[in-house]
């Protein structure tokens, strides 16, 4: 039945998945196993995205279904919340309020089991520094769609270095116009062209195996 949950998520069968999860919980199935199956499903969705079988639309819908299913399971989990795969601070760089890409990346990272601290949009460099210090995050993910954001990303990367957090802390960047040239300009550790790539980078830098 748990396998069924994974495949229902992959096929974006929202109602059927909801019923299956409810039935499994009523039977007393282990909630953590159910969450793990959902994560497996998200992994398959990520693979399909990389193979161009699925597009962003399917990625967003799968994440929504995942969140709904998780909301059903969480009250049954008690103290057992599953192991965190690492802590990540994410935000859109100062001066830029675009949030579509940032939100999708944050959602997918959460689906993969990371603790994600989303600082929102138009985030000043010092706020990233403060949040990393507060949470002990191992990765900062910076997003931006405007060319202005490149400068803010660079300032943020430099502020994290000046605070003595790098190189142990890794910094990744993404957003529509971001490419290798921007990576070099910003001085981050890597860049991603889409959300699936961001999950892979998190896996690489936090040692938890990406999608």
């Amino acid at each position, binding site marked *: 039945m748990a396998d069924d949950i994974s495949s229902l998520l992959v096929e974006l069968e929202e109602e059927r998945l909801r019923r299956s999860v409810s039935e499994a919980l009523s039977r007393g199935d282990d909630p953590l196993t159910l969450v793990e199956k959902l994560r497996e499903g998200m992994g398959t969705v990520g693979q399909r995205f990389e193979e161009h079988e*699925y597009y*962003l639309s399917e990625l967003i819908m799968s994440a*929504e279904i995942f969140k709904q299913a998780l909301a059903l399971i969480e009250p049954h989990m008690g103290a057992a919340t599953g192991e965190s795969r690492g802590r990540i601070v994410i935000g859109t760089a100062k001066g830029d309020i675009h949030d579509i890409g940032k939100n999708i990346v944050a959602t997918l990272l959460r689906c993969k089991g990371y603790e994600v601290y989303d600082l929102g949009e138009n985030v000043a460099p010092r706020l990233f520094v403060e949040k990393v210090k507060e949470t002990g995050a191992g990765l900062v993910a910076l997003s931006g769609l405007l*060319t202005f954001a490149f400068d803010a990303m660079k300032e943020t990367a430099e502020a994290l270095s000046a605070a003595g957090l790098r190189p142990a802390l890794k910094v990744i960047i993404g957003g529509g116009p971001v*490419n290798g*040239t921007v990576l070099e300009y910003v001085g981050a550790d890597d860049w991603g062209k889409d959300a699936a790539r961001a999950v892979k980078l998190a896996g690489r830098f936090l040692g938890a195996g990406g999608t």
Partner: protein
Amino acid sequence: MDFMSSAERIETAITLGKPDRVPVVPIIDFFASHYGGITQHEMFFDLQKADRALLKTMDELGRMDGQNLSYAGMGRIVMLAIPNPPVMPGVNGAAPDDQFQFLETSLMQPQEYLELIERGPVRWMMDKLKINHPSLYNPLNFTKAMATVIGDNLKFRRSMKRMRGHGVESLVAYNIVFPPLEFLSLLMRSFNDFTIDLFRYPDEVEAACKALRGPICKLGLQLVALSGVKRVFIGGTRTSASFMSPRLFEKFALPEWEAVCDFFIRRGITPVLHFDSDWTPFFHYFRELPKGKCVMNLDGTSDIFKAREVLGDRMCIMGDVPATMLKLGEPEEVDGYCRRLIEELGQDGGFILSSGCTVPIDARPENVSTMLHSVKKYSK
């Protein structure tokens, strides 16, 4: 040696002919205002200052045949006509040189797709407009707002005439429309919510979009009448392959794109399909549009060389010197890319060189100059 006027050059390229050289028609207001020494706020609200800044930019960096989409002087209309007012430089606490940006918030709930149909799309839109513009409930204020829209459009016409005197055509004037799906996603429902709606409420979304189609097309027609420019900017981002699967595109978006383009083409108006993000997997869908009647304007994310291969015999291709290159690249890189565009896409006509999508405020002036000069340097 140039022997065509800017207008002839652009029109020849649009109808798939070979002009005397490739025309260059960037989106340049954000950059030109900065370079010309005025704030972004002044560019949006003072058309004469914006025109002077553009002329200074051209005098110092190079001539252009036209402007693609222009924001100059649009501040009042943008703040009035957009239901969810964007970040506007110098307004509502934004600094005068802040970057203009749309807000990504939902102004409607899923059940309102059917309300839109029951209430009637125009009345429903007015209701939505009044949420953030409550003063419009007062008929006197509403009349003043309409007078502002018409008055500013007359100013646009005078500005276009002035700039035409300097050899700068307006490609689409202020004739800006978005197909219903794009409109709902960009301005009413937020991208994430809207995408989920496509799965959960497909029939409702489809019906609402059908209802909106007529009013949106008619609005475009009125804008064309006001500006006198028989081309219309039709914005596309959120129905691209960066966001939407082919299955969803075929079901929801393709019928809209076909219907909206057909509406304008049948009235002798050229749709300029302004496509941001990646449309490469969807190029083939646009082969069915009438030959030589549309422009496909790409932003540097789609594969423009593939566009030429798939669509070059059907419509004019326009683009796409990337914003990142204009900011961070070296002039040699810009020169090489423009040369490739002009030689590979423009050698037989049917190509317009442009920025992809906007020349950024903080572009390097020498890169902008290189782009503008490349059309004379490499056109054969």
